[in-house]
């Protein structure tokens, strides 16, 4: 008989007791940590030092339970994102929500645990009307739960002992459809939280590790993929039940006193190791980075005039190692806005910790220790800490992945300077996905999200070699794009004509980034209706991050193309259907592919209805280069030409100053002498076509003083200059008069 079933039968109803309230536990954690600088005031790892073997056994059991929960529970899922890919996670926490152990999956989503618990504590959930063992809470709100975006749905289940909350088992996964006006998983074009779909502040939906009956109705009535969502909900709960059970076995074996002390030591121990790691790998100083994202909302005036404008989001961050670890300061980033790209501190943490855990926690226990070692400053009123309670954060990932990239790249700059070159590579976070809803000819409605380009991306160039294609995902340690055969089965009328790497699509440099991905989806007999939108982590008219590494170009943004009203049957007859974005554009240019409406989207597209033989092509997951393109080994340029990785000879010849000729078999062969000459010429051209910084500064300053910029840029500066730190930097750099401002006069 199943262990988990056994547990349910022995859960006693908890009596009202004199145990500390959740509010008391949280404030105690805050006070002790604040006063001592050590987690929970743990200055000595007394349990570990007294009996390291018992201590490790305790943790191994805790960790094993969480790992096992995922490996077993994910098979309950209905969404490929959860079962196949990294889009789910389980964890166990302290009473205060501080992480003790996590499963495989999108690890940093643990960042929000303490946010949700703090809200429950501040609002006396345990006092009225009490928290008992195995209670189930649903959480998907950014403001009260810290949830990155409502598409990430959390199930918290309480672990109680003698009437005291001793911890939480939490399961998370990325829903394929969460019931917003815009169908799918990221409510693009949301103006505020009321358009974000199913948004739950922490609310109890079940008891004794079972959901209550009414909860099913919420999924059925408030989302477009109820079966899928109900199964995902059951999946999260199944894993939590296993963890809850394991926790009680641990309490029985080690006793509550040991348990309460050990869970705090575990976090303090990992915090110390993380701080040591930072000191061992980094160079102290200040690292600056920036990125931009364009939000194109102009055209919403008929319905929401206050949101009817484009916004150029400015992502700005500095990283500064210090005694406690390092400080990541986002001051200078844009203010919040009436768009779906806003974050919350919890959501921003979930992004920031990705690179930090990768860099400093991979050799220790993965716990809340990272949250103490990585200090964050999110200025109030900014996009990371809105002073408006109803912001939408449906698609915060579109810009917070850039924030993570900035922090992660600071670490790459540090390891490069420190000599640990083997660790240093260019970090980009450029994901893609598409989502939508439809109704087949027989009247069956469905909602869907295709996560494939969220599953894996190319890796930016290393400082000593090219980046690899489709080898990682900054937001999940288990890159997997799933299978075309499974995604296709989820979206009835869309069929793959290609799922490839996109040649030439990366940042160039001495070493190039790993090529991005491109898929071609073909619409066949859509029935009554099918329409999709495409949220995106790089679909923004900008590069992934603002700074290239050591003279290379940063990774290009993603894009999509809709080709509607095509002569596809003719291409099918020729066996020459387009396989990726590049080929499709070439076929359009050559006239082989005839298209009534060809649209290239470099920002989120509004709902796109597809009909028979319409094509929808995307490109995402590119990454940046490292080093001066003119330093690239010509042999690598030739190899990329012959392998079709960088197929445009004219382009790469000018990019890298390489001259080659094609031999009889069509292979490119290097012309060494001509290459040397061309590189010399290009270097000369660089000097001829450029200005001394001082002269350039004078020209640019004149434009700045005249505010000679497009409205979106003007708006961006007016927002960022409203924060003292960036305002000061801007004024010092351009030496503008005291009364200068971008605010609307």
């Amino acid at each position, binding site marked *: 008989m199943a262990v988990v079933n056994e547990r349910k039968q022995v859960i006693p109803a908890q009596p009202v007791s004199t145990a500390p309230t959740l509010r008391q536990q949280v404030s105690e954690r805050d006070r002790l940590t604040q006063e001592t600088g050590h987690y929970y005031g743990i200055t000595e790892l007394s349990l570990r030092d007294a009996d390291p073997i018992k201590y490790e056994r305790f943790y191994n059991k805790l960790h094993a339970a969480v790992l096992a929960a995922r490996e077993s529970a994910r098979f309950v899922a209905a969404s490929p994102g959860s079962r196949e890919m990294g889009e789910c996670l389980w964890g166990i926490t302290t009473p205060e929500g501080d992480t003790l152990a996590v499963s495989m999956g999108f690890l940093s989503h643990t960042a929000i645990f303490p946010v949700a618990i703090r809200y429950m504590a501040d609002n006396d959930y345990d006092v009225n009307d009490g928290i008992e063992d195995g209670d189930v809470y649903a959480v998907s709100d950014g403001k009260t739960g810290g949830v990155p975006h409502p598409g990430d749905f959390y199930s918290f289940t309480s672990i109680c002992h003698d009437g005291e909350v001793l911890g939480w088992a939490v399961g998370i996964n990325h829903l394929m459809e969460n019931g917003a006006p815009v169908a799918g998983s990221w409510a693009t074009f949301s103006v505020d939280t009321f358009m974000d779909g199913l948004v739950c502040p922490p609310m109890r939906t079940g008891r004794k590790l079972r959901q209550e009956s009414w909860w099913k109705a919420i999924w059925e009535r408030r989302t477009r993929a109820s079966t899928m969502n109900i199964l995902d909900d059951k999946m999260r709960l199944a894993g939590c039940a296993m963890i809850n059970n394991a926790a009680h076995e641990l309490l029985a074996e080690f006793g509550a006193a040991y348990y309460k002390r050990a869970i705090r030591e575990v976090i303090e121990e990992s915090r110390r190791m993380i701080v040591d790691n930072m000191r061992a790998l980094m160079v102290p100083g200040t690292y600056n980075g*920036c990125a931009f994202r364009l939000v194109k909302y102009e055209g919403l005036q008929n319905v929401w005039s206050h949101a009817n404008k484009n916004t150029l989001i400015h992502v700005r961050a500095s990283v500064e190692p210090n005694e406690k670890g390092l400080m990541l300061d986002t001051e200078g980033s844009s203010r919040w806005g009436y768009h779906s790209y806003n974050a919350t501190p919890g959501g921003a943490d979930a992004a920031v910790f990705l690179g930090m855990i990768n860099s400093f926690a991979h050799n220790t226990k993965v716990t809340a220790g990272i949250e103490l070692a990585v200090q964050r400053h999110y200025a109030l009123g900014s996009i990371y800490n809105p002073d408006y309670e109803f912001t939408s954060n449906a698609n915060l990932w579109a810009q917070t992945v850039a924030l993570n990239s900035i922090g992660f790249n600071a670490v790459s700059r540090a390891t490069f300077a420190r*000599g640990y070159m083997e660790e240093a590579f260019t970090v980009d976070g450029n994901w893609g996905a598409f989502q939508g809803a439809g109704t087949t000819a027989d009247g069956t409605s469905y909602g869907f999200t295709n996560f494939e380009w969220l599953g894996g991306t190319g890796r930016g160039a290393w400082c000593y070699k090219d980046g690899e294609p489709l080898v990682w995902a900054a937001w999940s340690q288990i890159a997997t794009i799933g299978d075309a055969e499974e995604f296709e089965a989820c979206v009835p009328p869309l069929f793959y004509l290609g799922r490839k790497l996109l040649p030439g699509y990366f940042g160039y440099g*001495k070493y190039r980034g790993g090529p991005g991905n491109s898929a071609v989806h073909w619409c066949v007999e859509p029935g009554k209706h099918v329409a999709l939108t495409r949220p995106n982590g790089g679909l923004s008219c900008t590069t992934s991050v*603002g700074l290239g590494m050591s003279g290379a170009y940063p990774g290009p943004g993603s894009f999509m193309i809709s080709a509607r009203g095509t002569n596809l049957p003719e291409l099918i007859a020729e066996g020459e259907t387009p396989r990726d974005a590049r080929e499709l*554009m070439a076929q359009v240019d050559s006239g082989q592919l005839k298209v009534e409406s060809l649209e290239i989207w470099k920002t989120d597209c509004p709902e796109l209805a597809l009909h028979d033989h319409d094509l929808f092509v995307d490109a995402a997951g590119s990454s940046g280069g490292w080093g*001066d393109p003119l330093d690239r080994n010509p042999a690598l340029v030739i190899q990329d030409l012959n392998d079709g990785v960088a197929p445009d000879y004219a382009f790469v010849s000018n990019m890298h100053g390489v001259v080659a000729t094609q031999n009889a078999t069509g292979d490119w062969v290097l012309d060494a002498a001509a290459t040397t000459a061309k590189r010399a010429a290009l270097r000369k051209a*660089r000097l001829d076509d450029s200005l001394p910084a*001082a002269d350039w500064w004078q020209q640019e300053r004149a434009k700045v003083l005249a505010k000679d910029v497009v409205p979106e840029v003007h708006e961006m500066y007016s927002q960022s200059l409203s924060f003292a730190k960036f305002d000061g930097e801007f004024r010092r*750099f351009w030496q503008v008069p005291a009364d200068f401002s971008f605010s609307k006069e």
Partner: protein
Amino acid sequence: MAGEAQISKELIGQLIEGTIDDDNTNRLQRLPRKDQDRFLNYVAVLQSRVSWTDQILLRLGDRLYVVRNAAGQRTVKCDCGHEFGDYRQNWKLGCKVRVRRTLAEMREVYDPAPACPEPGWQEVREFFCPTCAAQHSVEVVAPGYPVVFEMLPDLDKFYRDYLGQPLPDESPDWYADRTEALTQRWAAGATG
């Protein structure tokens, strides 16, 4: 395995050259504890590869270093020997700058066409060494954006607290952004 690994200068040289094989790369990445003398070996290897003799204090980029020059100043120096001046000033302001503003100009560095940033909202800035024309940095930012000071190291703290080998010329004001001194002079009409 628990003990500290010794990483040869040959291997460090291969990292710098880009000739290291993946087995060795993998081995370095899997070290349970990084070799703590790596930095000094790294600097030694770098020093042996440059044509000049100023002491390398830190490597900022493939061809860019913070050095202590003959005059005892901590300056930013290019492989080719070009000096960018005090490392506390953003060295990019000692570069020659080329800006790509139009789609046609951006198309020369991004491929395929839709991969280009959007003119008006973004521009591509290239920073060259005035002497050897090495491309030391690229910015893709909004027009009017202050040139980003990518990394200002705290060298005294690094050498004293991280490496345990304090620099002879420690001073409290070594860790400060002095870029404004330059822009002030420019604003006053000076060039260069």
